[in-house]
Every structure is written in structure tokens, then in C-alpha cells.
């Protein structure tokens, strides 16, 4: 008697626990189903008239991997993402460090607010800002010509560096926050102990601060790396056709040629690439952490 009542209540408790996750689960399952649908479409045949014919084939994937242009895009996308991630890290780390160690809370709040603002501005707007800065008619060229440093405008837009600059700008906020969060968690007494023991500030940084901030570096870089691998907005507007990422290739197929099967296939190749690279990255980090012990 007693056991059945208590088991009834424990069942009710479990049901209750699940209730909290139910709404999120519904949406997530919807998302997974949509992924399955998209994968399904990537296995169909393209038809210029009807967008796709529901007959199964893997020709989209074969076409992709036998096309050297497409395969090279995989590597150029990874290459672009790595450069942007590394450069963002280099720029963001000092900022995050400064934010974590600055003594005045007012300055900290102000800088955090400044970092957060661009995050809420539509990416198209930020891209437009870079076009206005970097174009032949833009502010950099205008100033340089006004100072008579150059006669003709420098071509700094519609190429790879422009895309890299634009991507760094949108990634900085996230990276700085990651670094800031992890350095803030480092007990300053570790650093103080090192300095009072006679270590130079560089050694303190290299042996104490840097290793302890690796979780922040890892989480920030993995978020940015994944997002950059799927970037297509910056390549479209700042790349001038020279920067073709996988995301851009997929977008073109969905919006221009309406080749949904191929577009879906490219999207999944991109997804697979992102997941496997992130997995490898996590393994590398784990390996280094074990090595340190």
C-alpha cells in the first residue's frame, strides 16, 4: 500500500520534471525533423521547372566531391574561418584581460555596453559601414587622397582582407566576453603569489593567467569558428565574388538557381564539416589539458 502511493508520487514527480523541458523539446524535435527533411531533399534530383523531383540519388554529393572548385571551397572556407578566429582571438584577448582586471566598475560597464551595442545591430548594417569605409569612394581613401599620400584610390574592398576585417568585427564582442568571463574567474592571488615569488609579469602571464584562461579561449573560439564556417553575408557584400564560402555556394543555389537538392547537399556537407572540426578541436584541447597534468 505504502509503496504504491510513494511510487505514484515519484511517477508524478518525474512527469512534472519532464514538463519543464517539454516546450523546449518540442521545438528542438521540430528542428531535428526539419534537418532530416533537408537531408532528404539533398538526395533528390534537381529539376529547373519543379525545383526537385522526389527520386532518390546521391548525385548531388558526387557532383560536389568530383568538382575540384567545390572541394577547394571546403578548404578555403576552413582557411578563412581559421584566420578570422585566430586574429579575433589576438585582438580580443587584451581587451578581455583589461576588462577583467580594470579597477573601475564604471569603465567596465561602459566598455561592456559599447561591446554589446554592435551585437544588436543588424549585420547588414555593419557590412554597409565597412563598404562605406573601405570602398574606392570611402573614408579611408578619401582621407589618404586628401592628405595626398596616394593619387588613385587603393582597392581595399571586394577582396579577402575586407571579408576578414568585417568578420573580425562581428566576432569581437563574443570573443571578448568569453575571455573576460574566464579571466574574471581567475583568483588574483595566484598572480600576486607569482609576482611576490619573483616572477616577471610576462612569466606570470604565461604560466598562470594564460593556462587558466584556456576554457574561455576554447569556448569563444569554438563558437566563432563554427559561425564563421557558415558565413555568407560578408563574403557576398565584401568579397566581390572573390571569396566563395560554402555558405555562399548554398545560398546561391537556394535563392538564385533554385537548385534545392544541391543547396541542401552543400548545407549538409557544411554541417558535417563544422561538427567534425569542432569535435577534433575539443579532442585537441582535452589532449593538451591532459598533457599539462
Amino acid at each position, binding site marked *: 500500500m505504502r509503496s504504491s502511493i510513494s511510487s505514484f508520487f515519484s511517477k508524478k514527480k518525474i512527469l512534472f520534471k519532464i514538463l519543464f523541458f517539454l516546450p523546449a523539446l518540442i521545438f528542438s524535435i521540430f528542428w531535428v525533423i526539419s534537418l532530416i527533411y533537408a537531408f532528404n531533399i539533398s538526395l533528390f534530383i534537381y529539376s529547373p521547372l519543379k525545383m526537385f523531383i522526389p527520386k532518390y540519388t546521391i548525385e548531388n554529393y558526387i557532383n560536389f566531391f568530383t568538382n575540384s572548385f567545390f572541394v577547394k571551397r571546403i578548404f578555403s572556407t576552413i582557411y578563412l574561418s581559421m584566420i578570422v578566429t585566430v586574429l579575433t582571438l589576438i585582438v580580443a584577448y587584451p581587451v578581455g584581460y583589461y576588462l577583467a582586471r580594470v579597477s573601475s566598475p564604471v569603465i567596465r560597464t561602459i566598455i561592456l555596453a559599447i561591446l554589446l551595442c554592435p551585437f544588436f545591430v*543588424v549585420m547588414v548594417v555593419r557590412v554597409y559601414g565597412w*563598404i562605406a569605409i573601405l570602398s574606392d569612394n570611402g573614408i579611408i581613401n578619401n582621407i589618404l587622397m586628401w592628405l595626398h599620400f596616394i593619387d588613385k584610390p587603393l582597392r581595399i574592398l571586394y577582396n579577402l582582407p575586407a571579408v576578414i576585417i568585417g568578420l573580425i*568585427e562581428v566576432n569581437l564582442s563574443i570573443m571578448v566576453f568569453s575571455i573576460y568571463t574566464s579571466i574574471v574567474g581567475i583568483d588574483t592571488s595566484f598572480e600576486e603569489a607569482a609576482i611576490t615569488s619573483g616572477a616577471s609579469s610576462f612569466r606570470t602571464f604565461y604560466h598562470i593567467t594564460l593556462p587558466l584562461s584556456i576554457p574561455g579561449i576554447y569556448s569563444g573560439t569554438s563558437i566563432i569558428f563554427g559561425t564563421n564556417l557558415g558565413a555568407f553575408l560578408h563574403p557576398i557584400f565584401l568579397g566581390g565574388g572573390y571569396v566563395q564560402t560554402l555558405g555562399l555556394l548554398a545560398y546561391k543555389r537556394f535563392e538564385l538557381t533554385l537548385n*534545392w537538392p544541391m543547396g541542401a547537399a552543400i548545407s549538409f556537407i557544411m554541417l558535417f564539416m563544422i561538427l567534425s572540426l569542432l569535435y577534433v578541436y575539443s579532442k585537441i584541447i582535452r589532449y593538451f589539458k591532459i598533457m599539462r597534468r
Partner: protein
Amino acid sequence: MRITSKKRILSIFIILVILFLIGPLFIVMGISFNSGTIMAFPPKGFSFYWYRKILESNSMKSAFKMSFITATISAFIATIIGFLTAYGMDRHRFKGKSIIETLFSAPMMLPHMITGVSLLTLSQQFRLIGTIFPILIGHVLISFPFCTRIISSSLPAVDPSYEEAAKISGATTFQTLTQITIPLLKPAIISSALFSFVISFTDTSVALFLTTESINTIPVLLFQYLYSGADPGIAAISVLFIIMAVVIVYTLSRLIKLELAI
């Protein structure tokens, strides 16, 4: 603390980074007041012409309505889901928690394009293209993890003993939730709502795949505008976005410690 040369270099570097981040925004604001048709900066002549032009544009008005409605509903749903998930994660332990966390965060972490593309294929199958539903679902998917995070980081401040006290005094779980827990979490809940509103309002990558001529959002409109050749009109809309961003960040900073949001 003595201002060493290292600190000075660091400070200069920080200022440069800040300029790097907000420079483009200022330039865009300057262009919006341009009286000519080219994107010249500094602007040649001062005029509100572009503001008038976009405010009178019909496509802009309907896109704004669409964006606003979508963002409001999406924020509402995302905040509720975020609250429930954060509460469930915090109060109950169970196996497989990290797998569920990863699953919930996935649409936000992976490129939004993938969510957009997948929802497009699904909504094509079920003839939902041209309705608001796929956009809503997409926006909720990419914003509710943020809400979960914001509310999760505020939950530790809500002492479970308050809830225990309420339950001992005879309140049902529902009453405890609505009269004790939620009011204590008000700043976090409002922040989540603001965050998810902005994420939905400014989202480009998901909406780009899910909009049609009849249903358009402002970011997509901006995208098309820029794609077909930019004129300073885009700068005028951009200024509105910048102002919105500043207002929201200011409000957020009043509600929660900014560091907790990430």
C-alpha cells in the same frame, strides 16, 4: 596604481578596438544625413531626405510590421521556454543533462543558415511558405538558449528556501512559481525578453530563407536593398537600428549586470 607604459599601451589598444567596433556605425549615421545619392563621407550637404524616403516606403512599413510582430511573439515564446528550461535544469538533476543542453543550444551555435535552410524545406512540404510560422519557429530556436542562459545565471540568486517556505505554508507549486520565483527573477526575465526580441528583430540568416514577397522582415529588406545597389536610404534605416541597439543595451544594463548575460 602607477600608470606604467604597458598599461598605457593597453589602454590605447582598447580605444583602437572600440573605434574599430563602432566606427562603421558612426560612418553609417553620417551617411544617412547625406543630401546626395552617393555614399560620400563626410556627407555633402545635410538633409533628412533619406529618412523621409524610407519612412514613406510601403515595403518598409509592412516589413516593419512583420518584423515587430514576429519579434514580439518570438520573444514571448522564447522567454517562457527559456524560463521553464532554466528552472528545470537548475532544480532537477538527471542523467543526459549535457546532451539535452547541447541539443537545445545547437540551433544557436551552428550557423543560422542551416536552421533557415532546414525550416525552408520543411515548410515547403507542409505548405507553410508565406506564413509567419516558420520564421517564428526559427527565431524561437535561435533565441531561447540565450534566455535559458540569462535566467540560469540569475537562478542561484533565488534561494530555494523561499520556495520551500511557501510550500510549507501551503502554496501549490503553481502559486509558488507565480508569486515567489517569477517576481524574484523579474530582471532576468525582462532581459531575456529584450534579448530575444532583438535577436528576432535583427535576424538575417534565418529569415532570408523563409521570407517571400508577401512576408518580409526588415533585415531581409535591407539585404535586398544592399544587394541591388546601396544608396544612403539604407543608412537611414540603419540609424534606427543603431538607436534601438543603444536603447536596449542601456535598458539591459539597468536590469542586470551585463556580465551575466553571456
